């Protein structure tokens, strides 16, 4: 008697569970976008997707597995979009049947640990930073640094160079900038998400670099803008392409993007480092989203809608986590690019 009733209630439970599971799967299939890639852009996509779900019910499932993984996944077609900190070359995009567009701008700056020298007090130029990272300038009281910083009492200290140990878009942007301003850097080192560093110690992640710089007197490193805002590190001002002394600001990153003629840049293959403009921050960067041309129109449209929503409504959210929203001109160029490449747009 009791066995019968137990099995019946058990069966009822199973039916309920099954029904729930099926409805869950259906709901997921209706309104989930999957993406994978860059760890740099992860906080932004996470923030946007949270708000987007509340607004539209569409869930964005983003896995921050790294740019390399993101590119591999979108090529294999297992995700709806891939995110990379390094743009793919137009010929590579073409060969793989992919398109790409920028998401948001960001920036990074040099930080240092020198007794008695305050945040923003030191001024660097690109070639000077390249020489430090090439180990050609080894002391803080080197005439090349002193000339740019008259009146600052520079100590006779060894420079300890700190860089990222993990592959990173931050490294790519930094090395790309040095390649543009220093022929020697371009020839000897070049730019990629990981590079063969001529000198220095490697910290894992921005946290790793920041903690080394904080601890080692005489050290210099590069970190994303958000880590400068935290206020524990002394950061540098830079002389930009126009010859102006600038501090890192979101507006400076956006200016870099605003001074690019995106309509002429094929597949948005433009790196935002070392651009013109009086307020332009020279070490500005960008992250890209990659779509498959052969994916269904519904899939691509869902992704496009999400990012377009972010461009229009997610600006405050982006700024709150130190990403610069794309200027309206850039967003317009993306919309035209979609129409041009896919034959449809939102």
């Amino acid at each position: 008697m009791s066995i019968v009733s137990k099995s019946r209630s058990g069966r009822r439970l199973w039916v309920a569970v099954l029904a729930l599971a099926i409805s869950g799967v259906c709901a997921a299939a209706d309104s989930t976008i999957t993406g994978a890639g860059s760890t740099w852009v992860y906080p932004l996509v996470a923030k946007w997707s949270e708000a987007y779900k509340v607004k539209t019910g569409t869930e964005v499932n983003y896995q921050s597995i790294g740019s390399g993984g993101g590119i591999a996944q979108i090529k294999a077609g297992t995700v709806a979009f891939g995110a990379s900190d390094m743009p793919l070359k137009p010929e590579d995009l073409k060969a793989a049947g992919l398109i790409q567009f920028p998401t948001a701008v960001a920036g990074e700056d040099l930080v240092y640990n020198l007794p008695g020298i305050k945040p923003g007090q030191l001024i660097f130029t690109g070639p000077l930073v390249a020489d430090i990272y090439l180990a050609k300038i080894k002391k803080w009281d080197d005439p090349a640094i002193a000339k740019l910083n008259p009146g600052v009492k520079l100590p006779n200290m060894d420079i300890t160079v700190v860089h990222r140990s993990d592959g990173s878009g931050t490294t790519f942007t930094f090395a790309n900038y040095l390649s543009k301003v220093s022929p020697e850097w371009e020839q000897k080192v070049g730019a990629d998400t990981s590079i063969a560093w001529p000198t220095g110690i490697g910290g894992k992640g921005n946290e790793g670099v920041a903690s080394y710089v904080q601890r080692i007197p005489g050290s210099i490193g590069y970190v994303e803008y958000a880590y400068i805002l935290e206020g524990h590190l002394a950061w540098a001002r830079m002389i930009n392409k126009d010859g102006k002394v600038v501090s890192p600001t979101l507006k400076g990153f956006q200016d870099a993007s605003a001074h690019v003629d995106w309509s002429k840049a094929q597949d948005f293959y433009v790196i935002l480092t070392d651009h013109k403009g009086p307020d332009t921050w020279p070490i500005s960067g960008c992250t890209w989203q990659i779509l498959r041309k052969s994916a269904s129109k519904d899939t691509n449209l869902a992704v496009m809608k999400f990012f377009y929503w972010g461009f229009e409504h997610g600006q405050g959210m982006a700024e709150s986590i130190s990403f610069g929203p794309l200027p309206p001109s850039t967003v317009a160029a993306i919309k035209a690019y979609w129409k041009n490449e896919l034959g449809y747009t939102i």
Partner: protein
Amino acid sequence: MSGSDMTFGAELRPVSEEPKPAVRWWRLTGDSLFHAAAVFAALIAAAALFATVIAIAYDSRLSIETFGVWRFLTSSEWNPVTQTFGAFPFIIGTLVSSAIAMVLAVPVSFGVAVFIAEIAPSWIKKPIAGAIELLAAIPSIVYGLWGLLVFAPVFSSIEPWITQYFGAIPGIGLLFQGPPAGIGMLTAGIVLAIMVLPYTSSIMRDVFLIVPSSLRESAYAMGATTWEVAWDIILPYTRSAVIGGIFLGLGRALGETMAVTFVIGNSNMISPSLLMPSATIPSVLANEFTEATTPLYLSSLIYLGLILIAVTLIVRFLAVLLIRRLGRREGASA
């Protein structure tokens, strides 16, 4: 040992082969099922190892074709920009950091094991053994964070002193040069030593405790000191097990990833100084795998993994060889 096994089997076999009417059919089926399951489990474990090696070798074929074996092993250029890859600095980094760990951990493990087995009063044995075994339960990322945030700052204040005193010694002094950053090969070795300690010390302690008390007590009765008992009686008696424990710890040190990545400084350059940053095979994999964007780059990283497996197998092979050789020598002297 093997003799007693034989007698055991000889006693048991006729009993189990006797037809027993009382045994139900499902018990026999159950037994044969269990037999099959055990064989299956053993095969799965072996197959998983082979499948892993084959899959890793297959995925690294692009790099093997491009660089070959010898060039990849001996080249010290690792440059994603020019797509030139060589494993030499990482092989050196892996071997040296593990060697430092063992040099530090083995004597301490021996001391701990002797203390627990011989010296400690019984009420303190358990808490100390427990505390050391708990070291093994700490996740390696915690060791990494501890190394980076707690140990490295302290160590960086000791480093100038090390450079001043040890660095002045001709020859050995080369090992102790460099800026006092608190991170580098030596820091990695020390953190690894702490991580390896519970493995080596608990094996040593276990085997020290099974040394027959008649042996120990007769040595003490002859007037031997604790040191003499430990070194001349206990250690020779347990030698092969102790070496096994050391190599178990070494295996762990060779493959350790997160903790090393945090404290080794991650530089691809080979330096004679132990205070300078370095890199190991696991640390490079942890650092660069996520952003390896080209097929050759990815394939070279997987190739590094294959080399790590080879290094580990070679170390194991040497351990077996060493134990066998010692066993033979002991046999000859006896």
